[in-house]
């Protein structure tokens, strides 16, 4: 039994020895699929890279990465694998864009008034993923002396031109 095992091992050694021709071509590195075009402010999840040398699975390292998901731009991640005498790298390019419009919400206000009563525009709350300046335009007006329904439209635009709007109705009543 021991001899058989030994022979088997010797055969295995010879087989392995025959395969031991080293070559850079056998060192493979590739990207894992990921989402590399992301919205500013979103979390960037680095899907990483994979590498192998024939049947040996290897763990690539991140050689460099300058991804800043909080700033619009094009970033580069370089992965590197070193094995035996060989080193290979692969690049992932990450694009941070802003395509999300600002999110608008009405601030609570008193929007039902009696004719002649003062109406105070309580405005809107704006949130935007870009941390940029968002401009707000208010369309429409309220004539407090004329009973009726008035429509106010708030239009928000971020620096990348993404826009969104929200409507507030104001009712002026004739009598109390």
């Amino acid at each position, binding site marked *: 039994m021991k001899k058989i095992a030994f022979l088997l091992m010797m055969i*295995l050694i010879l087989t*392995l020895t025959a395969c031991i021709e080293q070559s850079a071509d056998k060192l493979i590195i590739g*990207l894992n*699929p*990921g989402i590399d075009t992301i919205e500013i402010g979103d979390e960037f999840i680095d899907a990483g890279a994979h590498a192998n040398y024939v049947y040996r699975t290897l763990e690539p390292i991140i050689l460099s990465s300058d991804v800043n998901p909080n700033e619009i731009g094009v970033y580069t991640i370089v992965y590197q694998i070193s094995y035996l005498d060989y*080193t290979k790298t692969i690049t992932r*390019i990450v694009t941070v864009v802003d395509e999300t419009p600002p999110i608008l919400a009405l601030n609570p*206000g008193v929007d039902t008034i009696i004719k002649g009563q003062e109406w105070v525009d309580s405005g809107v709350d704006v949130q935007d993923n870009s941390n940029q300046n968002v401009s707000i335009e208010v369309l429409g007006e309220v004539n407090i002396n004329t009973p009726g329904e008035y429509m106010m439209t708030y239009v928000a635009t971020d620096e990348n031109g993404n826009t969104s709007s929200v409507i507030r109705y104001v009712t002026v009543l004739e009598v109390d």
Partner: protein
Amino acid sequence: MKIRKIKYILIVFILLLGFFFVNQIQPYAETESNPFYAELLYQVTDDTEAYRLASEYQVDLIDLSSYGIATYGISESSKYIEMETDGFVPNSSYEVSDLSVTLGGHTPSPIYQYALDMMHIQEAWLFTEGSPDVTIAIIDSGIDISHEEFIGRLSNISYNSRTEQVGLSYVIDTNGHGTSVAGVIGALSDNSKGIMGIVQNSELLIIKANNEDDPATLEEDESKSFSESAIIEGIYYAADHGADVINMSLGGTYANPLTRNAVEYARDLGVILVAAAGNDGTDELIYPASFDDVISVSAVDEDTLIASYSNYGTEIDIAAPGTAIATSLINNTYGYASGTSLAAPQVTGIVALLISQFPNESRTQLMERILLGAVDYGVLGRDDYYGIGIINAENSMNVVQYLVSVQFETFGGTLIDSIEVYSGHTIDVIAPTKIGHTFSGWYRDALFQTPFVMGVDLVTTNSTLYAKFVPISYTITFITEGSPCDSIEVDYGQTFTLPDTTLLGYTFNGWFTDSAYTTPYSGSPVTGNMMLYASFSILLHQVIAYVNGEEYASIQVQDGNIFSLDDPHIENQRFLGWYIDAEFLTPYVFRIVQSDLNLYAKFDDQQILVLFYDSDLITIYQESYVFTGEGVIAPDAPIKPSTPSFDFIFTGWSESYDSVTYELDIYPIYEKIYKPESIVLLPGVDTISIGELWIDQETSLNDDLLDLEIRSELDVETVGAYFIYYDIYDQDTLIDTRIRVVHVIASQVHIEITLNPDITTIEVGDTYIDQGASTNLGEIETTGTVDTQNPGTYLITYRVTFENQIVTKNKYVYVLLAIEDNIIVDTYYMKEEGVNI
């Protein structure tokens, strides 16, 4: 069985490492009697060159080694000088003739083996030349089993750890390294031949671990290499077959944990392991030398200077001669060799001598001898080149393991007698105890800065050890019927501040150690857990009631209690009540007693009581007594506070009080003024999208006198303007209404596009497959293409059109130029392992 399994794994996982192959082997041939004869060496590339040189200088080619060393014999002194000038190297043939003449008995040649002098081997031989009871294992390339220097010295269970075969026929050295190492350790000294090894009589257990030279590859010498598995196998085999010391003049840069296990296995069996530090001339760590349990040996030359090839660093333990060491070579020859490979066996040999002389000493004691006997070189004390210094066999033999006295200071704990122990040894005493304390270890100083671990730390001089005690913390529990007291923790021997406790109606007397309150707590230091009991005694107040100046009653009332008095009787007079003053200004209201008290009885003098009430119609605002028919002066109108929605204006009293004929209760009357401005709509989000939750923020109504009813027609599922009515009721009367209009407007659907994971950074020529995107609503339309043949940035746009809304999302794809030269050859890995010079 376990070891065997590991080995099988290792066979598959062969790691080829290099020997520190010995440097500058210069074979010489024995010759005699010629008044001038000298040999010169030259490194040739092939046979043709060797013969060409012989012809050019007209000298004899007397040897051409398989390593390309050509040896030339010269008979003319002028020719010798000419050739040496041209670059030929002397072959020390003089020493050969000297050797053959002077060697004999125990007389070493000082020229021939300087190492023996440097290490004071001859002086050590006065103690012992080696014991047959000691076994020295040499893990190497085997040994020349026919060499005259090892006759009768080789173990029959010598072992080929690569082929796992036992017997001398399996350990034949074809390389020469093992034979040169073994010669340093154990060459016979009384055979009148060759060299003298350091140890006699002891058995050499040869472990051949190197690979077999493949005759097919002439240019490569596979026997220089070995597999880690064979080394591991060798260590286990040696440890299991009685080795007292193991020499390993080999190594690699990888700290194989399985090798470390084998080393620790051997260590636990008491084996001392010695290995060469490496010949790279750097501070790179070489294993097994750099393992903690292995003595790492650096090399010095004849002038005690560290050899340039010798590795150095923090793991170097000791130095030994390694340059130009005369030793045995295969084929029953001799030569000079250099390398830490030759330094390690010097240490191994001396270790074997020490074991022979001190067979009963522990591994630790023997290690102490080696270290204490070394002669310091280089920087004072241990340094990274010489380690502790150059090994010295005589000093190590003479290391006196003198007795030192150890005193024990236990600071009031159990006394421990001083003990005597050999220096450099550990001690162990029973831990002392101390009342109220926990022992927390021994220290070398009374400030407890430097711990001393029994059984681990060594005693080197007369010393005192200090026992550290930590006082035990005890719990003091307070039991009281009064205000509770938290239990406290107090260290043994400490005092503490007693807490206060109070109990209504009682006086606190103090804390007692028993629940029967017989023994007051004295405040003595704490010696254990303790319960203290609060003692209280009742607290009484004296109440004296007077009627018309005479004492009517005298009673004792417990503090915090109330009491009652029987009404006093006087003929034709009605008793009106008790007063705290004899002038009857302040009536006494019976309440809990907290001090001594005098009371005075007041009797009716026929006046009529008139009570004016406050705005709450409950509280007495004014109490007046008048004689029948008289009027009362009414108090100022009591102010009734406004509520959020009402103000109150006083309009008069409920009764006439101009001529009182009977007892009266009089109440204030107010007019109630409603404030409509107090009720406004609270801000809300009243424009909502269809289906959205609407939160009614209601009104600012906040008056208990008013009720609110809400009427609403709101339907958030239908676009429109809806009225919300807030009806305000006073009692059941509708007094006011507020209106809020809520607009429900059409909503916009929220379309979201999410990119699917994709590889968007590719090289020219790669295939690109768009993995697309997904959306919660509608269909995705994709525009944009990627030209994988041209580098650049490409934009793919995903568009969803749904209910007149258009939403897009972009994805960037980068096609990069292929980097042709993407292979970096790391020079670190190109370096040949272990080989130097």
